[in-house]
C-alpha cells in the first residue's frame, strides 16, 4: 500500500458510497425483493396461521429457526470480536477490513434477533420478555437461559453499534467534507462535529480502546449464553458442559469464514483490491486453520466423552446424529467442510488463492450452519422416552425463511456500503504512513 496517497484513499472510500452502478441497484433490489418474498411473506403467513406451518412437532420444538439464530449469532462474532482482539494485539492487517467486519456483526445480530421472534408462537407478545414494571405485577424469569439471551444479545448489539460508530467518527467527518447534496447534513449530524484536533484523537483512542477491551469478554459471554439455551437443558445431546467453548470457537470460526467470503465479494465489487490484499487473506486463512483445528478437537472430545459415558440416551443421540437417516449425511458433510477442507490452508499458496479461499470459507459457513442445525435437529427428536421420538424435517416455508434471511443480510450489507465508509479511512492512512516524508518505509 505504499503507493497510495491520502487523497486516493479518501476518494476511493467516498466513491464506494456515492458512485453506484446499475448492477449494484439491481443487486440491492433483488436482495430486498427476495428478502421480502422469501422471508417477510412466509413469516406473515406463519404469524397468521400459526407455527403449524413449520415442520416442528412434539419432541422437536426447536428447529431450523433456532439453528439460524445460533448461526447468525455465530457470524456476528466475526466482526466485533475479531476487530477488538486484533486491535488490542495491534495487528496491522486488521485496518482495512475491520469496519465491514463490525457491520457484519451488527447485521447478523439483528438477523439473529429477528429469528427469535420468527420462532415464537405469539410474537406479538414479544415485549413480555423484557423486564419492566407493570400494573399486572408481572416479572420475567431471570433464571431462564432465554432471559440471559435477551440481556446478552441486547447488550452485545448495543455495544457493537457503539463500537462501530466510535471507530467511524473521523471517517464520517472525512466523508462529510467531501460529499454534497442531501448527504451533507446527514454526515454533519453523524460526525458529531469532528474536527480532528489532538484532544479529539486522544479521547477517541481512549474510548475505542476501552470498548475493544470491554467487548471481548462480552462477545465470549454472548455465545456462551447462547450455548446455554441448549446446554442448561437436560436433553441428551444438548446437555454438554463443553458447549460454551464449543460455541465460542465455532462462532469465531464461522465468523472469520464469513468475513473471508464477504471480503472477496466486496473487494471485487467495489474494486478496492489495493486495500484488501492477498496478505489479508493469508492471515485470515491462518486464523481459519487454527479455528478449524480447535473446532475439530472439541468435536472429537464431545463425541468421545459421549461414547465413553455409554448411557442409552447419549449413545442414541450420537448414533442418530452420525449414522441414521435423515441427518447423518449432513454430519459427514460438516466434518468434510469444517475439519478436512480447512487443512488446505496449511499451504501458503492455497491461503493466497482467492478461489480456494472462497470455496473453503463458503464450505465452512455451510458446515457451521449444519453444525447448529444438527445440534437442534438430532438431539430433540431423540429425547428420553423412545415412544415419543419423532424426526424433524423442516417444511418448505422454514427453508424459504432461512434462505430469505441471507438475502436480508445481504441487503443490509449492500445498504451499509452505500451509507457508511466501509473501509476505515484514517486507519488505512496510518498504514500508508506520512506522505510528506517520501521514502518512508514501514517495517
Amino acid at each position: 500500500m505504499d503507493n497510495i496517497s491520502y487523497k486516493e484513499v479518501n476518494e476511493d472510500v467516498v466513491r464506494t458510497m456515492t458512485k453506484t452502478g446499475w448492477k449494484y441497484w439491481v443487486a440491492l433490489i433483488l436482495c430486498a425483493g427476495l428478502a421480502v418474498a422469501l422471508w417477510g411473506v412466509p413469516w406473515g403467513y406463519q404469524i397468521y396461521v400459526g407455527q403449524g406451518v413449520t415442520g416442528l412437532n412434539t419432541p422437536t420444538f426447536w428447529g431450523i429457526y433456532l439453528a439460524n439464530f445460533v448461526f447468525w449469532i455465530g457470524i456476528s462474532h466475526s466482526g466485533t470480536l475479531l476487530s477488538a482482539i486484533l486491535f488490542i494485539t495491534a495487528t496491522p492487517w486488521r485496518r482495512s477490513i475491520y469496519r465491514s467486519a463490525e457491520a457484519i456483526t451488527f447485521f447478523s445480530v439483528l438477523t439473529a434477533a429477528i429469528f427469535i421472534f420468527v420462532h415464537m408462537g405469539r410474537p406479538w407478545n414479544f415485549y413480555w420478555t423484557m423486564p419492566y414494571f407493570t400494573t399486572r405485577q408481572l416479572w420475567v424469569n431471570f433464571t431462564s437461559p432465554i432471559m440471559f439471551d435477551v440481556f446478552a444479545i441486547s447488550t452485545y448489539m448495543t455495544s457493537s453499534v457503539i463500537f462501530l460508530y466510535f471507530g467511524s467518527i473521523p471517517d464520517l467527518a472525512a466523508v462529510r467534507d467531501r460529499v454534497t447534496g442531501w448527504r451533507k447534513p446527514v454526515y454533519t449530524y453523524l460526525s458529531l462535529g469532528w474536527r480532528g484536533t489532538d484532544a479529539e484523537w486522544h479521547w477517541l483512542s481512549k474510548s475505542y480502546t476501552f470498548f475493544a477491551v470491554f467487548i471481548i469478554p462480552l462477545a465470549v459471554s454472548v455465545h456462551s449464553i447462547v450455548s446455554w439455551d441448549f446446554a442448561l437443558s437436560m436433553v441428551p445431546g444438548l446437555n454438554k458442559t463443553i458447549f460454551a467453548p464449543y460455541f465460542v470457537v465455532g462462532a469465531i470460526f464461522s465468523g472469520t469464514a464469513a468475513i473471508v467470503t464477504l471480503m472477496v465479494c466486496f473487494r471485487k465489487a467495489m474494486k478496492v483490491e489495493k486495500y484488501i490484499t492477498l496478505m489479508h487473506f493469508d492471515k485470515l486463512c491462518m486464523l481459519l486453520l487454527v479455528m478449524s483445528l480447535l473446532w475439530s478437537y472439541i468435536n472429537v472430545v464431545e463425541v468421545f466423552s459421549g461414547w465413553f459415558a455409554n448411557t442409552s440416551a447419549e449413545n442414541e443421540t450420537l448414533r442418530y446424529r452420525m449414522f441414521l437417516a435423515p441427518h447423518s449425511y449432513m454430519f459427514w458433510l460438516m466434518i468434510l467442510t469444517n475439519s478436512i477442507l480447512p487443512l488446505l490452508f496449511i499451504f501458503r499458496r492455497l491461503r493466497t488463492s482467492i478461489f480456494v479461499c472462497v470455496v473453503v470459507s463458503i464450505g465452512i459457513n455451510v458446515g457451521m450452519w449444519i453444525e447448529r442445525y444438527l445440534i437442534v435437529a438430532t438431539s430433540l427428536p431423540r429425547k428420553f422416552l423412545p415412544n415419543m421420538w419423532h424426526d424433524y424435517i423442516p417444511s418448505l416455508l422454514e427453508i424459504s425463511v432461512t434462505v430469505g434471511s441471507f438475502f436480508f443480510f445481504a441487503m443490509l450489507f449492500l445498504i451499509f456500503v452505500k451509507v457508511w465508509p466501509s473501509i476505515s479511512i484514517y486507519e488505512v492512512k496510518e498504514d500508508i504512513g506520512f506522505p510528506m516524508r517520501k521514502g518512508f518505509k514501514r517495517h
Partner: protein
Amino acid sequence: MKNLIIYIITAVIFVVTLGVGYLIADQYLGRAPEQPINFSHRIHAGDNEIPCMYCHSYAERARVSGVPNVQRCMGCHKIIKTDSPEIQKVAGYWDRKEPIPWIKVHNLPDHVVFPHKRHVKAGRKCQECHGPVETMDVVKRIAPLKMGWCLKCHGKYDVKNGRECWTCHT
C-alpha cells in the same frame, strides 16, 4: 431542513397520541350501551332500595351473578306500574315468551375465572367493582376490568394466593 424535522416530530407526536388516545378509550373509558329496555338501576336499587341479590340471585352461589329472568321481572310488574311504556315492553317479551336480549356491560375474557360467589362471600360490596349502580339510570362500566386493577384490590385486601396466576386463570 429544519422545517422538515419539525414536521416529522409533529407527525410522530400525532401518531403516538393517537395510540395513547385509543388505549385510554379502550382501557379506561367505560361504556354504557343502549339496552333493549330502559331499565333504571337508580329507580330499583336506589329509590326503592331493592337489594342487588334479589334480582342477581346467583351472585352468592355461582361464578356468575345472573341476569334476572323475565319471570322475576313480571313477578313485580304484573301489578306495579303496568302502564309505563317500558314495562309494557317487558310484558311484551313475557307474552311472546321471549327472553330479553340485554347487552353485556361488564365482560371478561374467557381465560379469566371470576367467581362472584367468592367475592360476595368475602364481604365485598357490589359497588366496589360495579360503581354506584344505584345512582345510575343507564349502567356504565366504571372499572377497567384489567388485571392490574384486579391485583390492586387483591393486594389491598391481602387475598391469600391473590397474586397467583392460577387463582384466576385457567
